[in-house]
Structures are given as structure tokens and as C-alpha cells.
């Protein structure tokens, strides 16, 4: 493939930002004039979270080339640590916005630490075995949080695996995480604007990392690990970099997600959620950041759209069929060749129309 011209390259790089900003502006405009349906309003913040999750997972799966099946685990760690931070700081910090920011930072940090702890052993494995271990870790995180009791009082945080009573909280203290019931009575702090900013931050970090020395190293390791090592690039260091960065972003998204609801349980961040995000990444195109944004947003809205079309019962069924058909359409060589051919004819026609016909 001939190299793209510089302006086209820049457009590719900034397309995700433009798309997200345009979408945000559009939503705000519609909200001001006509107002959005309540179900759609309720989806705004989750869409932001899922976009960040998809972009961060794309860093691991598309750019680093490692299949991670437990990504919801990082979201979970971020969610619950964010809730703990937000609730524990309720008395000290009055501004909801600042509490939200702190919670997201705490979520990011905790998820990052988890990413480091998990990444160091896991990234030594290859292919399907790495996938299985990430799946296992995701399940472990879900299981452990499900049994966890965390409360706080004037003395600080208390942990227990047995029961709420076992926390021995002092007067004025309260349990934040109550085992299988998760976190309840959480003050909703998340806003769509904050979600939008988080998406921009995620895009900034991921896109800039890709177009830097570290990104090149990560992609080189993906394309040909042995060759990359032969030119002095350490595999563990850079794979870990992608993994931990991805975990940090997911943790932040998790905190935002949790603080959008009054209660959240660990079962929400299970294998199905991990797979959901993986579907966003694969459908949007591996390594294609713009694609992840579009796929995450579209596929989160799709079930709601189908509900509107009174296909309530068939909703998930149609979703599954659409998924299968799209995968076959985009991967079957015969179909793919036909579609590519069609695309080239269209782009050639428009290019010629713009420039005017050139005599051969």
C-alpha cells in the first residue's frame, strides 16, 4: 500500500477527537432544544464508560496483540475503590465534583496496581494461555469482591470476609461494601460532562502513546516478537506498559460507572461484560481507535433501539444474529474482496471527481 499523504495521516489521528466532540455537542444541543428520552439520558454516562473501556482494551488487544478476557475486572476494582473513596470522603469534601475526580483517580490508581500485580506473571504466557489466565483473574476479582465487607468509621477503613458485624465499626461508621449486596446507598456523582472529559483523556493518552516510541515498540512486539527482541526491545517491559495503562483507564471508567448508580454489585463486572467490551474492540477494528469509539457507542445504544422498535423479546436474539452476520461479512475472504472492490471504486470515483479528469 502506498504511503498516505501527511494531511490524511493527521486526519486519521484526530478523527476520534473530532467525532467525540461533535457527538457531545450534538447531544447537548438536542438536550437543550428537544430533550432526550429518559432511557437515552440514562445511557449517556454508560456510553462514555464503555468507550473508554473499549479504547483501553484496544490498547491491549489491538496494539499489543494480547487477548485479555478479564478486562471487566479492572473496571470492577476501579468501581469499588472509587465508591469507597467517594463515600469515605463525604464528610471531608463537600463538592461532589471534586469527590468524583478524587474517586476516579483512586479507581485509576487501584486498577493500575492490580494491573501491575496481574501483568507481571501473566504477560510471560502466550496466546490462548494468556487469555485463559486473564479470564481467571477476572473471575477471581469478581468472586473476592462478592465476599468482601468494607466499612469505615472515624478510625479508618475496616475489612472483613465474614460479615458486616465482623467489621466492628465504631459509632457513626457505616459499611460501604456489603458482600454479595455490593455497595448500596451510593450518592450519584457522575455527570455526562465528566464522562466526556474522561473519554478525551483516554483518547489523548492512548493515541499519543501509539504515536510515540513506546507505541512503536509495543506494535513491533506484536508484529514480530523475536525480531523486536533482536533489536533490543524488552518484551515484558512494553507489554506491561500497555497492560497497566489500559488498567488505569479502565479503573477510572469503572469509578465513573459505579458513581452513576445508587447501588452496584460485583456480578455486574463479570465475564459477560469483558466479552461485551471485546466485541466492541473486534467489531470496531483491532488497533482502530475511531472504530472502538463508534462500535462502543453504537452497540450500547443498539439494544435500546431494538426495544423501541418493539422487538423487546427478540432484542438480544437480533443482537446475536447481527453480530454473527457482521463477523462473517467482514472476515469471509470472498465477501471481503467484493466489499473492498466496491469501496475502491467509490473512492476512486470521488477522487477523480474532485481533481477533475486527468488525461493519461
Amino acid at each position, binding site marked *: 500500500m502506498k504511503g498516505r499523504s501527511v494531511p490524511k495521516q493527521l486526519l486519521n489521528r484526530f478523527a476520534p477527537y473530532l467525532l467525540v466532540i461533535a457527538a457531545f455537542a450534538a447531544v447537548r444541543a438536542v438536550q437543550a432544544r428537544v430533550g432526550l428520552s429518559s432511557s437515552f439520558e440514562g445511557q449517556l454516562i454508560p456510553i462514555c464508560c464503555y468507550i473508554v473501556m473499549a479504547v483501553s482494551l484496544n490498547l491491549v*488487544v489491538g496494539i499489543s496483540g494480547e*487477548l485479555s478476557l478479564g478486562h471487566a475486572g479492572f473496571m470492577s476494582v476501579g468501581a469499588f475503590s472509587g465508591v469507597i473513596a467517594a463515600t469515605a470522603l463525604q464528610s471531608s469534601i463537600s463538592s461532589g465534583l471534586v469527590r468524583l475526580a478524587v474517586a476516579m483517580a483512586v479507581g485509576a490508581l487501584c486498577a493500575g496496581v492490580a494491573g501491575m500485580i496481574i501483568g507481571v*506473571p501473566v504477560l*510471560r*504466557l*502466550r496466546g*490462548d*494461555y494468556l487469555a*485463559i*489466565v486473564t*479470564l*481467571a*483473574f477476572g*473471575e*477471581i476479582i469478581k*468472586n*473476592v469482591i*462478592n*465476599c468482601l465487607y468494607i466499612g469505615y468509621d472515624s478510625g479508618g477503613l475496616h475489612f472483613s*470476609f465474614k460479615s458486616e458485624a465482623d467489621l466492628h465499626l465504631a459509632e457513626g461508621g457505616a459499611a460501604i461494601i456489603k458482600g*454479595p449486596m455490593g455497595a448500596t446507598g451510593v450518592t450519584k456523582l457522575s455527570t455526562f460532562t465528566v464522562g466526556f472529559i474522561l473519554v478525551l483523556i483516554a483518547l489523548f493518552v492512548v493515541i499519543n502513546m501509539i504515536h510515540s516510541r513506546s507505541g512503536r515498540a509495543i506494535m513491533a512486539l506484536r508484529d514480530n516478537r*523475536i525480531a523486536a527482541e533482536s533489536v533490543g526491545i524488552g518484551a515484558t517491559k512494553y507489554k506491561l506498559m500497555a497492560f497497566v495503562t489500559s488498567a488505569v483507564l479502565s479503573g477510572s471508567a469503572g469509578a465513573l460507572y459505579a458513581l452513576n448508580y445508587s447501588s452496584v454489585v460485583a456480578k455486574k463486572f463479570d*465475564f459477560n461484560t469483558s*466479552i461485551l467490551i*471485546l*466485541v466492541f474492540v*473486534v*467489531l470496531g477494528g*483491532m488497533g482502530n481507535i475511531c472504530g472502538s469509539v463508534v462500535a462502543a457507542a453504537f452497540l450500547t445504544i443498539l439494544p435500546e433501539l431494538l426495544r423501541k422498535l418493539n422487538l423487546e*423479546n*427478540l432484542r*438480544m*436474539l437480533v*443482537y*446475536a*444474529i447481527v*453480530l*454473527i452476520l457482521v*463477523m*462473517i461479512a*467482514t*472476515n*469471509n*475472504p470472498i465477501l471481503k474482496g467484493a466489499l473492498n472492490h466496491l469501496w475502491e471504486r467509490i473512492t476512486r470515483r470521488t477522487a477523480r471527481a474532485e481533481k477533475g479528469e486527468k488525461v493519461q
Partner: protein
Amino acid sequence: MDFLYNLINGISLGSIYAIIALGYTMVYGIAKMLNFAHGDVIMVGAYICFFAVSSFNMPPVVGVLLAMAVCTVLGIVIERLAYKPLRQAPSLAVLITAIGVSYFLQNAALLLWKSDPKVFPSVVGNDVIKLPNGLPITYITMVTVLACVVIMVALTLFTSRTKMGKAMRACSEDKAAAQLMGINVNTTISMTFAIGSALAAVAGVLLCSAYPALMPTTGSLPGIKAFTAAVFGGIGSIPGALLGGILLGVIEIFARAYISTQLSDAIVFAVLILVLLVRPTGLLGKQVSEKV
């Protein structure tokens, strides 16, 4: 006394995982794909048997055979419609498609049979025999272990002695070369899915006989666990599936009994991780090194 009881239960549960794991490992060995829909085929098999026995009052054996027949057809249909067009595609694309099929099966079951748990009648009744030391063992436990042993032996003989079995082994080594030798790769792959799905039906029946609540999501978690068992034992290896499955079942039951019921799943997965870190290709897996 307790120990023996838990061990037997563990082996029984492990046998079910082993039978399911076989389906995963055979398909992976030959078609090089992770068939995520496998767990849901188990569920379908269980439902077919349930309706055969409860609604149509067929004898349990007929119910099982019917379930096997339906699942075999289902497996072949899935393979032809969803996986065959993607033979040349990257493995991640096939994985996502398999996930789509899994979602499809679960939601179709939800539509057809609703989400309320059905009480599955045990196919061998609920009789119990008592061992000399007074330990009670249910019929279903014994039948499960026996079924697992029989299936393993049959499968090993099949792959080593019969023409189709050898064709399967050839395809798992090198599809192109197998084709050049006159082996019909399409038929071989379909056969693999057929066998795997039939086994899934058996596993579904045995699973629901031992743990009677049946819902559209019943196959999901055992499917994941059996998948990890297959990788644990070394993906692509039939004895590995057996070993991985049994070990996983035993570890799960022991964790539940001696450590904590809620954390038992976490413990099982933690053991898996530890083993894979020590033996990165699973217990009986092949060490494949890249040629430079």
C-alpha cells in the same frame, strides 16, 4: 470419612467437566478455534432431555439419546453456518462469532422455555447405595464417573484405531497435508463438532441430574470452568482434558468443603493460574517453540 465423600463428589463433578472439556479440546485441536457456544449446547441437551422425560413421558434412556441426536445436529449446523465461512479468518474473529452463537442459543432458549428454573429429574433415579463404611453414594455419581471412563476409552480407541479418528489426528497436525492425502477436511471437522456436541448433551444430562436446577444460563459457568480445565490439562490433548477436568472438580469440591463456599470459584481459578505459571502450556500440553 468426610475426605472420601468429598473426593468422590469431586471426581464426579470433575468427570462432568472432563466430558465437556473433551468437546473444547477436540474442536481446538482440529479447527484451532475456541468454541464458546459449547457450554450452551450442554444447556440445550439438558432441556431436550427434560422435555422428553417430563412432557412426553419417554423413558430416560430415550431422552438422553434424543438429546444427543438433537445436539449432534445442532453442532453440525452451527459449524456449517457460522464457523465454516471463517476458516481463513483470524482466530479472534472466530471467537467473537462463537460468542455470538452462544448469545443466540441462550436467548433463543430464554424465548422458548422462559427463565424459570426447571427441576430436572435424575436420569437414574435418586437411589443411593451405601459403601461398607456407611458412606452414601448416589447412583448418579457412579453413573457419571462410569460414563466419563467409558467415553475416554471409546474416544482414545476411536482416534487411534479408526480411519476417521486417524483423519482427525492428521487434520490437527496439518490440514493442508491431510487434504493432499485425500482426507475430506470438511467432513472431518463436522464429525469433530458432532462428537463434541453429542458429548455435551451427555454432560448436560449428567450435570442436571446431579444439580437439578435448569435455566438458559445453566451451561455458561460449567462451560467456562470446563474450558479452563481443558487449557489446564493442555489444550488439544484428550488425556489432558480428562486430567484437567477431574483435578478441577476435585479442587472445587475441596475448596467448597474446607475453605469457603463463596470463594471456591476464586480458589479454583487461582490454582489454575499457579499451574499455568509453572507449566505455561498446561499439564500435558505440548511445548511448541517457534522456528527462527
